[in-house]
């Protein structure tokens, strides 16, 4: 069983997209997955109502501060993976989800303003680790990156985070039309129609790298290294 929360104190960082990509990719591997949509805007719930959601993927919406912990515990007894998509704000919901998470992923775009918000979440994780005397594994996930070019700002932010021993996923989720299309058409990346959406294979590959890296983090010993070097971007 693994609970993975997507947290950011800022909206538009790519939490819901990342959550759906991870969940649908895991669901293609003969396992069971629940997404708890804890964002009041319910973007994942809306996606789930479109056709093509895998049958082994359950989406639960409408949770509140009072019900989130029970919803996570209940889902963890029913499915192998629980993915929590949180609202883009600093709230009690984020704290509650972290207390039940095996991994917290912090999506952020490659700008300093976004990275500052990511740091707020990391500082809060550190506070929780001290309060509960336990490690909360986490990693920063860069999103909406350019698959061909890695700007200097992004390189600088990655270097800064690694210097501070902040774990950064080697895989960044690129800016892909297929990711937006997923929320327009519903379903999974492989089910998207190639005549309507461009470069689906690259999106599938990018997502598979992301999933594999997340699974590797979940299976890594708790006292293992927390940082890893960011890879050079793949070419489109």
């Amino acid at each position, binding site marked *: 069983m693994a609970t993975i929360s997507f947290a950011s104190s800022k909206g538009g960082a790519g939490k819901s997209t990342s959550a759906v990509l991870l969940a649908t990719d*895991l669901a293609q591997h003969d396992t069971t997955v629940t997404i708890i949509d804890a964002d009041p805007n319910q973007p994942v719930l809306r996606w789930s109502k479109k056709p093509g959601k895998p049958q082994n993927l359950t989406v639960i919406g409408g949770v509140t501060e009072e019900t989130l912990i029970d919803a996570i515990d209940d889902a963890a007894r029913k*499915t192998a993976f629980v993915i929590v998509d949180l609202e883009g704000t600093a709230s009690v919901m984020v704290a509650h989800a972290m207390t039940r998470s095996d991994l917290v992923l912090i999506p952020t775009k490659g700008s300093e303003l976004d990275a500052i918000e990511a740091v707020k979440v990391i500082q809060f994780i550190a506070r929780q680790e001290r309060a509960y005397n336990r490690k909360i594994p986490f990693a920063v996930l860069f999103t909406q990156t350019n698959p061909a070019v890695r700007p200097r700002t992004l390189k600088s932010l990655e270097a800064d985070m690694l210097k501070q021993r902040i774990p950064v996923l080697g895989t960044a989720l690129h800016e892909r039309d297929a990711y937006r299309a997923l929320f327009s058409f519903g379903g999974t990346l492989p089910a998207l129609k190639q005549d309507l959406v461009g470069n689906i294979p690259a999106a599938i590959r990018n997502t598979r790298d992301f999933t594999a890296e997340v699974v590797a983090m979940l299976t890594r010993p708790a006292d293992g290294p927390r940082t890893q070097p960011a890879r050079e971007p793949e070419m489109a």
Partner: protein
Amino acid sequence: MSGSRPSIFGDNIDLTGFTPKSGPEPNAVPPEKSRRIAEEGGFPSRAPVLRPPQSSPKTGRTVLLNARITQRAHDRFHEIVAAEQARFEVGEITHRVTLGEIVERALQALEREMKGQGA
């Protein structure tokens, strides 16, 4: 040649070790403690607070009375209001007195006086 490069992590991800949880969460953080730590760390509750509807008592006093009076009458009037409000503060009466109520009580007293004179 395939149009899609394989993932550098390989396409087969082994998830056999992941199964649903069987028992209760060991050493689970109680929600009350999580809430306290969150609020101390600047992650407050964002849930809407449901307050009972606040409505002022319906007195029916909606019409404005505007009159020119002497400074002495004005001061006396407000002294009476202040005295009545002081009685409310110490619990001698159960409601806060308004200017409108004092006007109405003054009228009632005047009417009683006029009736007494007429009798």
